[in-house]
């Protein structure tokens, strides 16, 4: 086993990995940018090294600096977390060259799964169902027509070099195909200087369901069942849960099997996730494989009892997986809400700033993975995720009730957060019924919310008016020293009517 691990990340995920290392008795090395000197991960690590200025490309993304710290500190392995260098095959190559173990899959697995067309080809060859369509760019207009008719409308035209929604065209019927192709090509040309496009069947109102897998260096694989990630805002996951209400034991077994086949096809090592789109008839299609720890891994940990980060570390050290497939069981139900420093009242505008007060929920079945504390200044330079709140219950109903309860306990002042948004989703009848797809938040939820009447308006007015009143009083008192009211007597307070005494 490793004696010392460097964590090449920041924020909540660095704290999560640190926790696993500490529980395993492994010494930890943190890295931090100049603006993260006071961050929680810097304070929790056994050793911490400054790796440069705040922008990630000058600190957390600089391979040379990370490796320099690894060598200087004597770390034998590096955990990349998610984001930053986590899926960078160049980083994996460099680690290998420097004989420092990167906790994760090989550069080869990252490269294969990182390329849309190569990943598709590879998993298809391994028998994994993919969205019907072409893998290669389409050569001619005739071929576009032939393939489109073969797979059936609606179809999606996608830029081969694509990303960020550019060069995407949905085509509902044959008549639109010619002009859509022209537009997709010209968009692709101007965005990526490459006008090649491919064609795929368009899955209407899909759900996003993914399977967590683990693999070791000895050819053993297990899957840890599914996570439902259809609650997305602008294609970003915001709430995840396990199990998924639409997945039957048969589908679960089938999905798990193909996810393992996909992993085996690239001799996958460590933790990985196969993402699938599921259509209304519960057909599932491979979307992509993420070759890293996922943000939402805690929901799987809560229902399976398996510590995914510890398994990652164990298999990286050459050990065999500690679980066999027959040991893996989903017990109860877990939900995760991603808490962002964003203002839901202002179109989710990022809201960096200082956390002036913080109350983290506790009690049965609640887990909070966060990187903040009272007085912490959330920097402007990085992803706005500040916490992941996870609730476990014996079933979905209890998990939702517990999440609602925990969200109501969660207080963050000084910055705006998405906690109120999550409370609203937990109260939404479609969410409660499990009736949603990946378009639910953007297309249904926000519309329903607009029409909603708010409750307890008078209490809102009381609090604001009393706050203004107190401020005015304080200001007035400052002009007349000596007349300012002294501190309220605790004796008076305890006899005040309207205060319930317990016990």
């Amino acid at each position, binding site marked *: 086993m490793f004696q010392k691990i460097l964590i090449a990340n920041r924020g909540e995920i660095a704290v999560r990995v640190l926790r696993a290392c500490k529980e395993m008795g492994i010494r930890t090395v943190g890295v931090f940018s100049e603006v993260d000197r006071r961050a929680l991960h810097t304070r929790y690590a056994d050793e911490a090294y400054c790796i440069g200025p705040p922008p990630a490309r000058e600190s957390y993304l600089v391979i040379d600096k990370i490796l320099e710290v690894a060598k200087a500190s004597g770390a034998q392995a590096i955990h990349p977390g998610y984001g930053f260098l986590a899926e960078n095959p160049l980083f994996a190559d460099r680690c290998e060259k420097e004989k420092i173990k990167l906790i994760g899959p090989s550069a080869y697995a990252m490269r294969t799964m990182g390329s849309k067309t190569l990943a598709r080809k590879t998993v298809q060859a391994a028998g994994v169902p993919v969205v019907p369509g072409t893998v290669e760019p389409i050569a001619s207009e005739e071929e576009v027509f032939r393939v489109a008719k073969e797979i059936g409308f609606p179809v999606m035209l996608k830029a081969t070099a694509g990303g960020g929604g550019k060069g995407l065209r949905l085509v509902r019927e044959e008549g639109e195909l010619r002009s859509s192709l022209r537009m997709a090509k010209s968009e692709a040309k101007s965005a990526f200087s490459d006008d090649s496009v491919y064609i795929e069947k368009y899955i209407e109102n899909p759900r996003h369901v993914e399977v967590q897998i683990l693999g070791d260096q000895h050819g053993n694989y297990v899957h840890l069942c599914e996570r439902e990630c259809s609650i997305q805002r602008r294609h970003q996951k915001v709430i995840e849960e396990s199990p998924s209400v639409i997945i039957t034991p048969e589908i679960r077994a089938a999905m798990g099997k193909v996810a393992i086949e996909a992993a085996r096809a690239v001799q996958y090592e460590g933790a990985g996730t196969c993402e699938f789109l599921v259509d209304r008839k519960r057909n599932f299609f491979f979307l992509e494989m993420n070759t890293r720890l996922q943000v939402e891994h805690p929901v799987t940990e809560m229902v399976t009892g398996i510590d995914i980060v510890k398994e990652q570390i164990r298999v990286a050290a050459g050990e065999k997986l500690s679980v066999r497939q027959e040991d893996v069981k989903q017990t109860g139900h877990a939900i995760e809400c991603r808490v962002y*420093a964003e203002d*839901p*009242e*202002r179109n989710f*505008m*990022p*809201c*960096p*700033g200082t956390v*002036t*007060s913080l109350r983290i929920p506790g009690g049965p079945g609640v887990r909070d993975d966060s990187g903040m504390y009272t007085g912490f200044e959330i920097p*402007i*330079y*990085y*992803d*706005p995720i500040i916490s992941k709140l996870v609730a476990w219950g014996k079933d979905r109903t209890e998990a939702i009730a517990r999440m609602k309860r925990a*969200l*109501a306990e969660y*207080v963050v*002042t*000084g910055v*705006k957060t998405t*906690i*109120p*948004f*999550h*409370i*609203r989703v937990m*109260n939404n009848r479609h969410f409660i019924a499990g009736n949603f797809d990946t378009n639910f938040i953007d297309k249904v939820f926000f519309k329903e919310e607009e029409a909603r009447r*708010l*409750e*307890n*308006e*008078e*209490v*809102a*007015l*009381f*609090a*604001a*008016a*009393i*706050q*203004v*009143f*107190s401020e*005015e*009083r304080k200001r007035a008192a400052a002009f007349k020293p000596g007349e300012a009211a002294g501190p*309220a007597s605790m004796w*008076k*307070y305890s006899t*005040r009517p*309207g*205060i*319930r005494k317990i016990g």
Partner: protein
Amino acid sequence: MNYVATIGEREVKVTVEELGGANYKVTLDGREHVVDAHQVANGLWSVLYGYSSFEVDVTRHPGDEFEALIDGDCHKFSLMNEQRRAMIRAGGKGAAGKAMVTSPMPGKVVKLLVNEGEEVRADQGVIVVEAMKMENELKSAIAGKVKEIFVKEGEVVESGAKLLLVE
């Protein structure tokens, strides 16, 4: 003390009177309520109304605009001292015809989309401020001419910082 709250189109007359300790008599359009309110953290209030216990997170924005968050419901309204309101009304349109674009969050100025002296439309994007990997285009509230630009591209700005003035 007398206040006026404006909630959407509605106006509510609010008065607050201290009853001692943390008890207040608050009237809303003449209806009296006794409220026990403690500020437990900056802007965070524990309110007992009758025997019902509430937690209210109050945020005050510039221009006497308020947000009060109660269990996921965000109430938005303006609340102003009656005297202050009268003064502003009497002061008339002193500020009309001018609109300051300010940064709603701490961040970095990525791009200026206009130059000084340029004509802009209402709702035209004038400046891009980046925070937390997201670029946010800020718009001019009014049509007019860019009178002055207070920041440079690449500059780090605080929340509420003056960015540019449209007249």
